[in-house]
């Protein structure tokens, strides 16, 4: 069975190919990282997987089913959750409610049963209690207890990142997409995140697909790494293989020959 595979994924914005014939496969249970310079097309790949962008070409296989072109909520239902590079929390809700939204797919209360919630014994009441208990477990795991009832918009950046991770975990995904989980964090906070990602992999058995710029961290926790530049994949393999790959060194440390000027411009536009 194919757990998760992307093959020939191409995302073209007009003439710009933000992702160009990208193929990789993620094995169940591993931590798989996608790295590349700014504007390489990493987040575009995530957005295609999620259904936020409709890919121009290619296949996205999740548990033997092609999920390419599915709407984001259907992708979520299939068992893929994600976090965002620039935090996308519901800034006027508190931590509890934010993570509760991760339980959305597990709750059956609709408009009517919700409106008629009357006491603990009602359907909606029971479901609220049950799911809040689940959320509390995640709050405990991520040590967010003291922020439980705080409105998230005003919380520190690192905490917000954690809450976003918690919200994704609440959806009990089989595949978790993390878009730069360490961006903007100090060394200590990064340590914590690495620790949690390991925990999520080991204890919750969730497969992780990760985008990250921090090379130390990527080399440390990833089982395999895909390197892309200008939308094309240039290397794939174990951390020790990738770190000595000539193409990767060229992409990160600079090329000897001139890089195609047009590509450079277009990739920076894409990042914006």
């Amino acid at each position, binding site marked *: 069975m194919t757990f998760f595979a992307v093959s020939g994924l191409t995302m073209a914005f007009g003439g710009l190919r933000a992702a160009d014939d990208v193929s990789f496969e993620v094995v169940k249970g591993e931590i798989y990282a996608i790295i590349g310079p700014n504007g390489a097309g990493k987040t575009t790949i995530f957005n295609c997987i999620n259904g936020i962008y409709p890919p121009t070409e290619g296949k996205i296989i999740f548990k033997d089913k092609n999920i390419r072109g599915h*709407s984001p909520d259907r992708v979520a239902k299939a068992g893929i959750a994600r976090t965002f590079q620039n935090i*996308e*929390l*519901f800034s006027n809700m508190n931590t509890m409610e934010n993570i509760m939204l991760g339980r959305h797919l597990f709750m059956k209360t609709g*408009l009517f049963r*919700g409106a*008629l919630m009357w006491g603990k014994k009602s359907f909606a009441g029971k479901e609220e*209690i049950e799911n*809040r208990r689940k959320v509390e477990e995640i709050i405990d795991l991520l040590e967010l207890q003291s922020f439980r009832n705080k409105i998230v918009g005003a919380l520190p950046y690192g905490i917000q990142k954690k809450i976003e991770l918690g919200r994704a975990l609440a959806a009990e995904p089989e595949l978790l997409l993390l878009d730069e989980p360490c961006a903007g964090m100090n060394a200590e906070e990064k340590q914590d995140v690495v620790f949690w990602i390991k925990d999520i992999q080991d204890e919750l058995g969730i497969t992780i697909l990760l985008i990250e710029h921090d090379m130390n961290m990527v080399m440390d926790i990833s089982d395999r790494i895909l390197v892309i530049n200008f939308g094309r994949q240039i290397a794939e393999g174990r951390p020790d293989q990738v770190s000595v790959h000539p193409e990767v060194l060229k992409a990160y440390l600079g090329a000897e020959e001139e890089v195609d000027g047009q590509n450079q411009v277009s990739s920076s536009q894409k990042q914006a």
Partner: protein
Amino acid sequence: MDMKRSYYDDVRLFSSGVTVFWFVALMAFLFFYPFVFTNYYVYMANYIAINIIVVVGLNLLVGYTGQISLGHAGFYAIGAYATITLMTVAHFPFLAALVCAGLIAAVFGFLLGLPALRLEGPYLAIATLGFGLTITTVIGRIEMLGGRQGLHAPDLVIMGHHLTSDRQFYYLAVTITVLLVLLARNITKTKVGRAFIAIRDAHIAAETMGVNLVLYKTMAFALSAFYAGVAGGLYAFVLRFIEPELFNLFLSVFFLTMAVAGGLGSVMGPIAGAIVLSFLDLQLRNILSIPYIGDWLRDLSASYFSLTGVSNIQFVIFGSILIAIMLFEPLGLYGLWIRMKKYWKPWPF
């Protein structure tokens, strides 16, 4: 105290015994209100109750889901016309007609929600504005609905009782209002309400967490339209006569003003907004009959503005209130209340 003992405390209707006390006190006040106040104030209470229904519904759409609507007078009109027509033509009993009218408005709300899936901000405002203006024009051309002449409401009979006076109608209106407010409050605290807020705050994240945007946006429109439709049905029996001109653009703006003045995104805020602004709306119409001040305003207006301008003074006041709210307290009356509560919390220290 705010100590929580169970997860249910987060969503409990009455968070403590004190809230239960205030709720009972409020119900008692509402019950005895018609015995204490004169007919005019009972009529005013009916007017306020109906506005509360619309504004609570509108707030579910604007305050919670973040979708603007300048067309709520349209749903209100649909509710009013549908209630009367169902009663006179199809001989529905009042409550059945009222619910059906709400559902008809909800269907229109759902249809208006479809284009709203692709429109945001000012574009959505214009689309809903167009809807509000169109619906009254269409109604004005339908002979069965009385055209430009308007429609008279039939007798109001509930389970064999004829409700003829404002006092009798009061209990009906208040019961329905309290019920609808409680339902709205529960909706905002459960799954659907959270999905609404999620769409407002970060719709992409909401989608990737499994919220179906198409479903929930159209649901918000339909739900909001249902509230407006029910309120419209009640309003038809407060006035006993309706015509298309009643449901003009200003009414839509007035609904939105009440919601904003009260505080978007809370259940209590819009209620406060509806009470204060509806009260002002009715009272300021009589401002000229106040001794001294009325005469002074008439003189002022006649010498500096226009001869007839004072009769529309409520619009001037509403405008000023909106500006003041945007400047000083964007959360409206509800924000003011929260601040006061915070200020008094450590009292008497």
